Every structure is written in C-alpha cells, then in structure tokens.
C-alpha cells in the first residue's frame, strides 16, 4: 500500500509498539496476575496479546496515550463500532489464511470476498468515527489516518476493482444438464423459470399463496469446508468456459496479495488489548465494583481508595459475594508500608491488590479502585513465600536472603517492592533483626515498599513507615478485612481466635473435665 501515510498504532504515540518482555514476569504468579491476564486474553490470540500485558511502560506520554484510548472505548457507541470492525477484520484474516487443498478459483474468490469485506469494514469504521466526538489523541490520530487511507488512490482502486469483479462474478449464469450420471456445464442464455410456468399453468387449481408466483424460499445450504465432487467439477468447467473472467480473478489476487495496510493490522492487534481488558472488567463493573484511571506522579506520596484484589473479586463475583475494598494514604515522607494484623486478616490480599495496582497502572489500564494517585513505577518486585528449594540444597532462610539480595540489587528509586512474611522460618529474634536490616536497606535506596509481617515492632521502624493494621470487630474477634493507619498494638488476636474455638487453656480444662 501507499508508503506515504502510516499510523504508529494505538499502544504508542510515536512508533509501532513491540513488546519487549517475551516471557511472563516473575512477580506475576505471586500477585495472581498470571490468572488475571490469562482470563483477560481468553478468546484472543494469546501469543500476540499476552506480551503486551507483560511489558510495563514508564514513559508518561505512552501511559497517558493509552489511558485516553481506553477511557474513550468505554463509551457504548465507540465500543460497538470497534466491536463490529474487529469482528469484520477477524473474518478477513480468516479468509486470507492459506488453504492448500482448495481449488485455486475458490481461494481466489475467497480472497476477493475478503478484500470487499476489508473495504467495507474500514468505510464503516471511518463513518462511525466521524460521527463521534473524539478527544483522545490516539483515536483522533486513527480517525485521521483512516480518512487519508480511504481517500488514497490505491485503496479506491482496490475497492472499485473488487466490487466490479464481484459484480461480474455475481452476474455469471451457467446451465447444467444432468443426464443420468453425465453432467454438462455450459454458458447460459436467459431461460424461463419452469417452476413459474408450472404455477401459471395450474393457477386455477393451486391454493392462493402458491399461485401468485411468490418467490420460493429455498432451504438454506449447509456450510462446508470443502466443495463436493460435483461442485469441484462444475467449478473447473466454469474456469474453462469463462477463462477471461477467472484469469482476471487470479490476476486480482496476485496484484492485491497483501491488501491489508500494516497500520490497520497493527491497530486491530492493539485494539485487542483494550477490548480484552475492558471485557474482563465489564462483569465486575456491572456488579458495582469501581475502576478508575490513576493519576501517575513522580513522588511516592500515594493515595488510593477503594482498591481491591482483582483475582479474588473475580472468584467471589462468580459466587455472588462482595469483595472488601481498602484505602491507604502516604504522606510526603512515608515510603514504607508495614502491614500487620491477626492471621487471615487479609494482609496478603491487600499486598496483592497493592502490587496489581502498580503493574496495571504501568500498562495504562483502568485499575481497581475509586480513585488513585500512584507513583509511576518502572518495575514491581515481589518476595512471597516459596516452597523449600530442595534442588539447590538451600535452607529457606538462605533462599529468602538470596532472593532479597537480588531484589535489592535490581531495584531502583522508582521500583515497588512487596515483601510477604519473609524470614518466617527462623526465631523471632533473628527474624526481627533481619527484617530491620532489610527495611533499612530498602529505605536507603528510597524504594517504595510494602512489607507484610507478623512482627508488630517493625511497624514503628522509622518516620518513613506507614503502619496499617487489620481491623477486628468487637470482642468476638471477627475479621473485617479492612486496614487502618494505627500503631500495631500487639494484641494477641491469635489467642482470641483460639478462645473463640474453645481452645484456650481454661476452656480446654473445662471441656476435658466434663
């Protein structure tokens, strides 16, 4: 196609986007992002789409570009037009796939149909976009590109040739004479419909609907991948009887072998990303869960409200249950979050929500939450519990330390580090000591970190620490899954839990005595 006009695509404002990260990032599994991305990509071309989700962006222009495109796509009119366009393009691409066992003429005809569908899809999309008030830079650029493409002489030539050829083929008529098992095919002069003659002859006797010569609705033909033997032969006969026409058909195919403009192909792929994500969050939105486009800043003074774990929300929504949302806020000095609380208070869930938030924000997607003001991070590191690494003959503590070391080496001032109950397999004293050292190291590098721990004393580590404590309701010690900014008070909630199950010292004695 015309090399003069091009469009970089909808994922990057300046150049065609190529995903840099070619394999699933290490932190995906800990944050359950692997499941989230797999569910979102279901129904699309996984191989091309998943890498886009794997590659976070740190360029503010890119992120803003993407957020604007996605936000615009939430409006129903644009979403409908996009859906129609992507469906049409999917059919075009399916038709262009090579099918070696089909007759040449059939492949050429399918190619022609694909070309027509392509032209129609582009025209329809351009028409729809013209009618919409678009503000996002990406959409405006795409709309302008389409206008230029549709006005280009090459496109017009493609469309006109395709339509003319299709009309000629549509007007083709031939006669088939079947005598026993011999079939003759020849070009057709006009001939009368004999069934109409029948209806006319017996008009006085036939009941009213049939006698009026109503067009007969023939039963629909079942779709088939291959032509049956008779159809194949008839097609061969037609190519011989109308050599000029079929030669033109083949010539069209050669001339316009690659009629899909690269920018259109690129955009179709890019649109898959937005459609996948919006399609994934749509059912959750329908249940009332909020999603927003975060404000991305350079400081660590973050604030977010209404955040939740996306994977958990999906699971609970299937069972019809609601998911608890949390808020947090960091002042200008704070950049370490220490999350403490009783067992099963939702600490890990909160940590995951925090991690998901940052990764998704770095993709330019809509994130879970009512509003968010986040650090524009360039990487997310996680340190969650792993099974004992038997193969490398290391103890867990050794493993933990090695991993932490690697993280600290790789982390930069714009990284986000999430530690979930590290140093659990050692004594309390050692764990406290090691944790303090880790926090010190993280603090020194100025990294934004979240540490989930059962060691309450860490919560008051430094002025840069935000302590979030899981809130329990009343004496009955029931969990709310909410976290509040307050100093860790070290109450033995585990004990309260044990009491609730009748397993405190006094209760056990009571129960065994009776």
């Amino acid at each position: 196609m015309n090399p003069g006009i091009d469009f970089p695509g909808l994922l990057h404002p300046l150049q065609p986007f190529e995903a840099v990260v070619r394999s699933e990032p290490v932190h995906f599994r800990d944050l359950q992002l692997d499941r989230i991305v797999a569910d979102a990509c279901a129904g699309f071309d996984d191989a091309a789409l998943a890498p886009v989700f794997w590659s976070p962006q740190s360029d503010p222009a890119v992120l803003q570009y993407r957020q604007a495109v996605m936000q615009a796509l939430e409006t129903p009119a644009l979403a409908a037009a996009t859906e129609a366009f992507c469906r049409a393009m999917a059919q075009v691409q399916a038709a262009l796939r090579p099918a070696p066992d089909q007759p040449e003429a059939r492949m050429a005809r399918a190619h022609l149909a694909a070309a027509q569908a392509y032209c129609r899809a582009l025209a329809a999309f351009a028409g729809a976009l013209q009618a919409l008030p678009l503000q996002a830079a990406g959409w405006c650029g795409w709309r302008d590109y389409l206008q230029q493409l549709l006005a280009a002489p090459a496109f017009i030539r493609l469309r006109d040739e395709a339509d003319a050829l299709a009309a000629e083929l549509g007007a083709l008529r031939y006669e088939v004479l079947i005598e026993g098992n011999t079939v003759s095919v020849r070009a057709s002069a006009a001939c009368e419909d004999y069934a109409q003659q029948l209806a006319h002859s017996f008009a006085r006797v036939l009941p009213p609907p049939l006698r009026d010569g109503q067009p007969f609705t023939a039963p629909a033909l079942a779709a088939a991948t291959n032509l049956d033997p008779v159809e194949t032969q008839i097609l061969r006969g037609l190519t011989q009887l109308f050599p000029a026409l079929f030669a033109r058909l083949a010539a069209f195919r050669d001339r316009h072998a690659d009629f899909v403009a690269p920018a259109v192909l690129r955009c179709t792929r890019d649109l898959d990303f937005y459609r996948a994500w919006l399609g994934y969050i749509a059912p959750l939105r329908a249940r009332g869960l909020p999603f927003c486009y975060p404000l991305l800043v350079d400081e660590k003074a973050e604030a977010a409200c209404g955040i939740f774990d996306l994977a958990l929300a999906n699971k609970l929504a299937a069972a019809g249950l609601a998911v608890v949302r949390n808020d947090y806020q960091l002042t200008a000095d704070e950049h370490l979050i220490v999350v403490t609380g009783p067992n099963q208070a939702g600490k890990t869930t909160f940590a995951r929500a925090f991690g998901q938030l940052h990764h998704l924000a770095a993709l330019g997607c809509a994130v879970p939450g009512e509003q968010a003001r986040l650090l524009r991070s360039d990487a997310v590191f996680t340190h969650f519990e792993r099974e004992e690494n038997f193969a490398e003959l290391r103890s867990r503590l050794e493993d933990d330390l090695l991993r932490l070391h690697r993280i600290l080496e790789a982390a930069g001032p714009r990284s986000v580090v999430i530690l979930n109950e590290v140093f659990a397999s050692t004594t309390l004293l050692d764990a406290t000591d090691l944790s303090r050292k880790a926090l010190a190291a993280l603090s020194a590098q100025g990294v934004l970190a979240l540490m989930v721990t059962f060691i309450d004393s860490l919560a008051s580590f430094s002025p840069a620490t935000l302590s979030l404590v899981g809130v329990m309701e009343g004496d009955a010690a029931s969990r709310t899954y909410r976290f509040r900014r307050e100093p860790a008070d070290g109450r033995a909630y585990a004990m309260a839990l044990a009491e609730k199950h009748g397993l405190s010292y006094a209760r056990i004695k009571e129960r065994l005595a009776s």
Partner: protein
Amino acid sequence: MKPCLLDPQGHFDANAALPAEAEALTQDLALAPLFATMAAGDAQVDAVARRALFAAPANDAAVVAWRHAVLADWRAQPERLAQLRQLADTALAAEKRAFRTVFSRIPESRLTRGLLALRILRSSLLELRETLLPLQATARSAGLQGLCATVLERLDEDFFTALDLHLEALSFPGGLLLRAGLDEDCRASAPQLCPPPAKLPGWRLRLRGLLRREPASYRFHIAPRDEAGNRALSELRTRGIAHAAALIEALVDQFVGFLAALSAELALYQGLLRLETRLQLLGAPLCQPALSESALACSAEGLYDVSLALHAGRPVVGNDLAADGQCLLIITGANQGGKSTFLRSLGQARLMAQAGFPVAARAASFARLSGVFTHFRREEDRQMRSGKLDEELARLSALLPSLRRGSLLLMNESFAATNEREGSEIAAEVVRALVEQGVMVVFVTHLYAFACAVQTEAAQTGRQDVQFLRAQRSDDGQRSFRLEVGEPLPTAWGQDLYTRIFGKSAPA
C-alpha cells in the same frame, strides 16, 4: 378448490374434532339410533353425520337453505350420488396405495412421488368430469351447480393437456436442465429449473452435432461406484427441482383434499336420504323448515322423539308447541307423562333443523341458536346421595363458559338431589341469571316451590315470555304422553303409578 356442497364457502371440515359437549348431547338426546339409521354400517357417514349435527350452531339460514336445495337434487337421483361417492373413494384408495409403494422403493425425490400420484389421479379426475357433465343440466340447487361449475371450469381440456405435457416434461426425458449462479463460496447459488429439454433420438443428436456448432460445454462423468459423487449429484438435482416439487405436491394435496371432502359431503347426503326413507317407511311425519328470521321463534306441530320412533320401529306420539318469544319453558306433571321424551325431541329437532337435516314433526319454525346444551341427571350418580348435588353443580359450572346469548339449555330434573326448598332456591337463581343473559331454558322439574315462585313473579311483573307446560293426565290416571299448557300442580300423580303397580286392592 372445495366441493362446497354443505355450505357456500366450504367452511365445513369433515376432520374437525367434535365439540366438548358432543358426548353429553349424544347420551342425553339419545342420538345413537339416529346416527345408526343414517350410517347403516358406513363409518364415514356416521362420523360426518356427527360432525354436521354438532356443528349446527355455526350455521345460519343461508346454509340450511343451501343444504335443503342440494338434498332435493340428490333425492331426485340417488344413484348418481352413490356413483360419485364411489368414484371419489376409489381415487383416494388408489392414490394411497401407490404412495406407500413408491415411498418404499425410490429414495430420491418428492417430485417422483408427486408425479406418480398425479398420474393416478388423472384418470379419476377425467371420470369425475364426465360424471358431472350430465349432472350440470339437471341440477337445480346452487350447491350442485357450483360443484359442477368448479370441476368443469377448472378441470377442462386445457388443464388435461397441460397436465399431460408437464407430466411428460417432468420425467426429464432429455435430462435435467438447471440454471444457476456462483456464490461467494464457489457453490451453486439459487439453482433454477429450466424447461426440460426434449429427448432426441441418437441419430438426430449426432446430426445436430455435425451440422450446427454447439456452444462449448464442459462434460464430466460421475462413476457409478463414486458414493460421494453420486450423493453430491443427487443433492444438486434435489435443490434444482425443489420449487417444482413443492408445486406438484401442493397440486396433489389440493386434489386429494377435494376428493376427500367430496366423499364426506356426499356421505352425509346419503345418510340424510336414508333417514328420510326410513321415517317415511315407518309412516312418521317429516318436514324441512327454513331457519326463521325472528329471534325467538320456537313452534312445532306433531313434534316427536325421532330416536324413539327409529328404535321402536313405529310412529310415536307427537306434541304441538307454541313457544314463540318464550325464553323460559317450565314443564311439570305426572311421572311417565312424556316430559323427558318431549325435552329430547325439542333438542333433537332444533339441532337437526339448524344442520339442514329433516325434522321429526309435521311442521316447525325455529330461530337460529348459538348452541344446544343439556343438563340431565346422570345414571351413575344414583349410587350415593351425598355429593350428587355437588356433581350436578360442577357439571353446570363447566357448561357456563360455553353458554351465551342465543343458546338453548335443556334441564331435566336438575337439583332434585336435595330437599325441595334448597333445590328450588338454587334453580331459581340459576334460571333467573341464565334467562337474563339471553339463554333459553327449558326445565323439566318436580320442584313445585320453584315453579310456583316463577309463576308468581311472572304474574306480578306481567311478563309474557314464560310458559308452563304440564304432562296430561286423564281422570282415571291414563297418560296421553302429550303436554298441554297448564300451571304446575303440587302432585305428580305418583298415586296413579302406585295403584297401577300394586293393584286396586291396595289400601287407599
């Protein structure tokens, strides 16, 4: 195409289901001997007679007149009637037989079956035409003339010529010629059947090939053992002839439907003629009253129970009725005085009059009814007294949705299953409501309190549309089985019966 012998538009459907009240009417009005006489063993006559009689409420005066006229024509030439019916039945039987054998042998097309059916019907249709030709001259009724006109105009010479041409052409002697386009999938789109080429003998084909430049054609052959190829070829043929096959099928259906309807309608007339003959043999009077224009006409002379006469084999006592403009008839009087018989005869006569059947009376004049319903005591309910009233009320309630203005309800000793006071109360309520809604009620009853109450009310309001009839009884207790106009009496003269059965020696 319809024979239209039973009504001008051909609305009568011999295959329609009987209405819900058919069974009750058959039992209560004792219609079995009537149908048996008409049918004389012919199941089709029995079936169509039932349908015609129970569909009577749908008829108006025009339909009744139509049927009387046609019956008059058939009365003059009953052999022609039998001949015509025989023709129709033979044709139908032949077509059905052929259909079965064809279906079993040839798997391919509906067209082949249709063409065979048409070939079989062709000769019958020709015979039909020839039978009706002389009839057209002698027919006087609009119905019969219409039938002759329909057949002779539509199945004329041109029709048979065209039929023969098409039958020949559709056997595709020179091959099946289709015209089609190419769809997006490179398959045949909308194949159309072209006028079938004639079969040319071999030498003419060769000559034509030598002399004339044939248009170029691509020829290929499907091997006999090529399963897929043969299946594909068969599918293409089926697609091409689909439209023609549908038309041929429709044609066959039309003819079969016409012949079946004709057979049924002729069967009915045969039944009617049989009934007339039988009654005349018995010496019992008959009449053919037209439906009256006035809305509440209801009078007759010598009205008798036709089933009783047919069953007994001799004429029976008839009644004179002068109930024009009456909407309520209350019949009281001596036991075994002929009250139930009268009720039956009235129900039978009104249905038969509206169905165009001969009526069992010397003369009669009836208005058009929208339905005839019965509420008689049921034999099997005599087992238990408790629940019998329940059953009666339930049965009446079930009738209610069907009752409307212009319906006739015949009640025989309803609500007798409780004490007289309660029964009278219920009867009064029911009857008042029904009569106000325009239902004509004829009530045979022993509930003196009820009859009295109605009488008092009628006298007070001065209404003229209530009539009281009483079973006659002579002073010595003899019954005449006649009804006379008379006020209700508190006794039904059970004393007479007692005396008769126990003899005069019984204590007084």
